[in-house]
């Protein structure tokens, strides 16, 4: 990949142009129709609120980002280990898979209060909620990747009397990498959502405040400009995570690309 100025402009130009256009339209519409600021603040007011609370929002961004990253990395690690177990036995798979699906189908919002009762009203609970919401995509994708091995590769390994261990580490694990990366893309996004949802519940009792807290607080106080600023900061966090995970995946997948 080359990052020439020209290519960056070609890539970022059109979406940034659209963004500016929307901002202008928004500013114009709000001024023209005299919309009440607590219903729909103008971009200018949002920017002012963001600058005014810059320090709080930056801290919140870092805190939420840390919770999301920890949640994501633990879902990556734990999901991978669970998939290793799943790949080794159809019995284990059959026994445990329904509960993995349960994890996916039970609304995280519904069990978040329970997690807070168990793990306290703090950072730890936020990480756990973020972890739980990100776990399932890793498990399904990675397990699929470990099992979706071309039968000729299995025969090749069998010809050389490969042990179960060799089959796992030299075939199944490398084979699952593209699947793991696909799962990680989904899971990283969900982890950000998980940490913000977690903060909705935890925020008020916590010593430090994440983005979820500011969303709830500003919404309760009808500080809509701050609410917008917090939401945009969340978007920034999501975007950062998305870009990072995509860069890592491109790097990792160089070897797995078949023509």
């Amino acid at each position, binding site marked *: 990949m080359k990052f020439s100025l020209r290519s960056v402009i070609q890539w970022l130009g059109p979406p940034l142009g659209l963004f500016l256009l929307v901002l202008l339209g928004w500013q114009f519409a709000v001024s023209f129709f005299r919309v009440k600021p607590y219903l729909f603040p103008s971009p200018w007011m949002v920017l002012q609120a963001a600058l005014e609370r810059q320090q709080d929002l930056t801290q919140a961004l870092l805190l939420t980002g840390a919770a999301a990253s920890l949640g994501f990395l633990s879902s990556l690690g734990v999901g991978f280990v669970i998939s290793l177990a799943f790949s080794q036995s159809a019995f284990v798979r059959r026994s445990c898979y329904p509960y993995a699906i349960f994890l996916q189908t039970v609304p995280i919002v519904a069990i978040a209060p329970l997690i807070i009762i168990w793990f306290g009203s703090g950072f730890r609970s936020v990480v756990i909620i973020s972890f739980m919401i990100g776990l399932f995509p890793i498990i399904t994708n990675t397990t699929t990747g470990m099992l979706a091995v071309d039968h000729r590769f299995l025969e*090749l390994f069998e010809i*050389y009397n490969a042990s179960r261990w060799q089959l796992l580490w*030299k*075939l199944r694990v490398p084979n699952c990498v593209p699947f793991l990366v696909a799962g990680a893309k989904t899971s990283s996004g969900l982890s950000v959502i998980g940490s913000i949802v977690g903060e909705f519940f935890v925020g008020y009792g916590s010593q430090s405040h994440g983005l979820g807290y500011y969303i709830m607080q500003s919404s309760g106080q009808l500080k809509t400009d701050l609410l917008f600023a917090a939401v945009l900061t969340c978007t920034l966090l999501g975007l950062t995570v998305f870009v990072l995970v995509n860069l890592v995946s491109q790097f990792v997948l160089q*070897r797995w690309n078949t023509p």
Partner: protein
Amino acid sequence: MTHNQTTSNFPQDSDRTVANPATNPLVACDNVGLTFPGPVQALAGTTFQLQRGELVSVVGPSGCGKSTLLRLIAGLIANTSGQLQVAGQSAIQARRQGLQIGFVFQDATLLPWRTIQDNIRLPLELLRVPRSQHADRIHEALELVGLQDFARALPSQLSGGMRMRVALVRALVTHPELLLLDEPFGALDEITRQHLNEELLALWQSQKWSGVFITHNVYEAVFLSQRILVMSPRPGKLIADVPIPFEFPRTPELRGTAEFARLAAEVSLLLRGIAT
């Protein structure tokens, strides 16, 4: 007719074998069959012997069980009837007891995430050959097919013919006693196929393994083998054993001789006779 044509029971003529007749055959199939539950008969009673050092082709129509026969010999699947012995024991036992087998698949079957040298290293790793020997063995293997410069390339960066060469020397890197080839050159263009046929014969002459070569290409079979086993459609069984008397080393010019054409036509007719 010079070939020996039989129906189900297939007599062995010992005068045709090149190896010392006193030694046991490396592969001995006695009325070997395979029926999958269903029941689907994949292979009817098949009887033949492969002497040590022999290179034999098996030709037959698609779906006749040629590949199945090869997988039985490799011990990847077990026969449901008859007797199959490899080096005097069951196929699976022979492999587990350390009989070195090389298997070349229809396509190269290289692990896409491993470089060429690491693909060739795979059998050595799986068989736990000491690491100190790897570099020499890999270099030797790459030299056989002139791919030294591609040691660190990924399979996706090579052409189909080059990938097949890598697959061939990967199978040879363990110095196998028995090389099983399952239509390895079927996907290649004709010129590349001819080159690889010649390279394969040169390797066979210098390394003295025994080989079973599955193909549906009659010319390839005549060029490569000491004898050709002809199979019937599903459920496959051997219906003819055609000796190919040409001397070794065989040169590309052999393909232009009248005798070559006559033998190819004879095998084709045997196959056509089956098909119609």
